[in-house]
């Protein structure tokens, strides 16, 4: 492969990215100034980024541009000025900063929360309750040319046996979250079943999450490996050394300080 020249900005970027990555990883040793520096930079950059995007997307593209266009087209029409209503409501939210006027923000909150609650109710019932009941309530047996049969293949999620297991699981877990009766007698058996189901699901989720977190680590390590190359000026090894040395210096300094007290 011929040597491809990497632009200076990318090399510089590699150094910055590597440095910041290592600063954050220094938290694994313990909380330290390098980590705090990286962390505050992170918060700062993401806030700055959001401000810029909100400005261009909300105020410019959704509010200002359509409004100006409509005003130019039909300055007299009432509908033209309609985007002013949400803008006013939005301004009401900002009264939060002025304690004497902050009650005004309640009007805006009432608007948002009222709309959100109203919109959510029928949709939640439809997608999260009725649809879920519908899929749980299925016949355990099927009718085919050979007559009635019940699927016992565990590997097929829709088989009769799995339908029964699913039903037992859903009902016993729901029962575990039932607070009006004591868990004794048959209730206890059901609730215990529910707990076992819960624990299996939590275990599975834990296993799945391990995968997720490890992927993130793999992604970061891959970048570090790329940036360790000669074309990036050996950013990773150099900065790793710098980080370790600074940590050691910091550790020494704090020890001396606490030792002196």
């Amino acid at each position, binding site marked *: 492969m011929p040597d491809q020249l990497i632009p200076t900005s990318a090399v510089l970027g590699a150094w910055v990215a590597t440095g910041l990555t290592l600063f954050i990883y220094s938290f*694994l*040793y313990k909380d330290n100034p390098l980590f705090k520096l990286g962390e505050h930079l992170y918060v700062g950059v*993401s806030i700055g*980024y*959001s401000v810029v*995007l*909100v400005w261009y*997307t*909300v105020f410019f*593209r*959704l509010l200002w*541009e*359509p409004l100006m266009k409509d005003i130019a087209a039909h300055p007299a029409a009432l509908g033209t000025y309609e985007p002013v209503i949400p803008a006013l409501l939005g301004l009401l939210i900002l009264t939060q900063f002025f304690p004497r006027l902050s009650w005004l923000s309640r009007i805006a909150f009432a608007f948002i929360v009222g709309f959100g609650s109203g*919109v959510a109710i029928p*949709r*939640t019932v*439809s*997608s*999260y309750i009725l*649809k*879920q009941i*519908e*899929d749980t309530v299925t016949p355990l047996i099927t009718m085919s040319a050979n007559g009635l049969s019940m699927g016992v293949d565990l590997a097929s*999620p829709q088989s009769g046996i799995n339908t029964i297991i*699913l039903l037992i699981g859903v009902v016993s877990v729901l029962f575990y979250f039932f607070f009006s009766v004591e868990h004794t007698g048959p209730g206890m058996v059901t609730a215990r079943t529910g707990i076992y189901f819960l624990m299996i*699901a939590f275990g*599975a*989720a834990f296993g*799945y*999450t*391990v*995968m*997720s*977190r*490890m*992927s*993130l*680590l*793999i*992604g*970061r*390590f*891959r970048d570090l*490996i790329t940036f360790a190359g000669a074309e990036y000026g050996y950013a990773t090894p150099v900065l790793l050394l710098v980080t370790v040395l600074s940590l050691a210096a910091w550790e020494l300094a704090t020890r001396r300080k606490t030792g002196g007290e």
Partner: protein
Amino acid sequence: MKGSLKDLARRMIAIDRRIIFLLIACATLLPLLNPFGLPIKVSPEVKAVYDYMEALPERSVFLLSFDFDPSSKPELEPQAVALLRHAFRKNLRVIVMTHWITGTGLADGVVSQVAAETGKTRGKDYVFLGWAPGGYALIISMGQDLYKAFPSDYSKTPTLGMPVLEGVRNLRDVNYMVSLAAGGAGIEMWYVFGKDKYRFEMAGGSTGVIAPGLYPFLRSGQINGLIGGLQGAAEYETLIGRKGMAVAGMDAQSATHFVIIILVVLCNVFYFVLRGDKGKKA
């Protein structure tokens, strides 16, 4: 002899966790530097997404929503790349957007890169709409009128009249939709406020953290397929026959999983050694 065993167990169980950190770092690093390439098995839930895409006729409208930000990039970017490669290869019209403000730059980068490598042009074969606020409210408004929800795309080109959006008025004209989600504003929101009402077929791609919670929706057919985490991405890469970042990462994934499993087994061995001890004292 027995006492020393218990001593060892006691010491091992209270081991400095930084040693574990080091083990994990090695288990990740070594396979990345020296991959061993194990075969990838494809699950039915990933196959379902692939099959549906495969069956779509040319120039169908495919909407891909990047509902994540850089914090989940290593998991979801490979999924996005694989899906986009597949869509472009099938000559679908691709619409890309994001609900997460901090994911905007990432989404833009991924789409431009994949489009460039497959020779697709912005505005004709695909469009990146960018980010808009509102979450579920944005989906409702896209369901009624796409051009009101996104008057212009990310590069400030007006969306109305774009060749890629020809004949697309709203979400009802979308043939297939995939939400790549890392959390709250994602797959479930797209189902409840989008698919449920505007009747397009959809699937989900998610991080490993939220994937288990999406299985009930998969069962009930609310989503027709699910790509879960890096393994899901690796499966999709295998299906389209272009191994990429995900397949390359799976060896490291295998190694770290086994380190953790060995740690768990060891921890239980030490625990049982110590437990016998307590039993005697009681």
